[in-house]
């Protein structure tokens, strides 16, 4: 298997294949990225942080993704994080715990896999998706899941570590992997993620 492209979204900006392509404003950094990247998708504003980050990360990788796609259902989405939907869970809880009313639009985001749903809707991707929770980014874990995905007949996988940890940085590391010869090899995933984090 082969890493075809990577992208990264954080308060530092938007990065594609290890090059910074857009700087983010300090305040409202996600909105500033969305506007600077000139994407037209009003649903963006309703998304929670996880979905916004993953959305932007995949938008800037659109060309690379289109180039490997063989059909609308042969690309698996393999996503993971450490905090699930905790950030939105707390916002939803807050919507009613202190005198308000439970918010339906917040409640629908209290599941981490809504992220994959948002991307599937935007791009009409009908393939397989799974959202996993691991304590930290685990390269071996992703490699295992990638092997399985290819063994089942998928041709490519769009993988993401997209997290909103309370004691860490909000980030989305997106990587597109194509089948090649289905041998794990060294995908250098953790190195790439660390490079992005250290930009």
């Amino acid at each position, binding site marked *: 298997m082969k890493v075809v492209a990577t992208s990264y979204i954080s308060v530092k900006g938007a990065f594609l294949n290890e090059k910074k392509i857009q700087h983010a404003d300090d305040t409202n950094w996600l909105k500033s990225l969305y506007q600077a990247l000139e994407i037209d998708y009003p649903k963006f*504003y309703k998304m929670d942080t996880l979905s916004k980050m993953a959305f932007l990360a995949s938008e800037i990788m659109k060309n690379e993704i289109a180039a490997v796609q063989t059909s609308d259902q042969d690309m698996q989405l393999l996503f993971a994080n450490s905090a699930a939907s905790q950030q939105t869970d707390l916002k939803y809880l807050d919507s009613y715990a202190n005198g308000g009313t439970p*918010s339906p*639009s917040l409640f629908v985001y209290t599941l981490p896999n809504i992220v994959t749903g948002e991307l599937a809707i935007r791009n009409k991707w009908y393939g397989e998706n799974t959202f996993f929770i691991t304590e930290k980014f685990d390269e071996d874990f992703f490699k295992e899941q990638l092997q399985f995905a290819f063994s089942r007949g998928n041709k490519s996988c769009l993988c993401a570590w997209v997290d909103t940890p309370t004691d860490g940085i909000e980030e989305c590391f997106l990587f597109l992997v194509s089948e090649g010869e289905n041998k794990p090899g060294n995908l250098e995933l953790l190195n790439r993620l660390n490079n992005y984090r250290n930009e």
Partner: protein
Amino acid sequence: MSELKEQLKAQIIEQLNLEDLSPADIKDDTLLFGDELGLDSIDALEFIVLLESNYGIKIADPSEGREIFQSVNSLAAYIEKNQ
């Protein structure tokens, strides 16, 4: 009535996270669930919350909402009638 309508526009923008818009962008007769604003069924439920939280009006059946939430005009008319 026009004060209520301006207030409603601001509340709609806030409740539904329509960050790109300002009240001036929503006309009194804009079809809220038409193509312009891209609102969906979850947003319709947020309207119900808005009516209850801000105006004390309860809607028991979400399907009643379609007519009431057609535009700022119909929303304002409903509020005036039911407060």
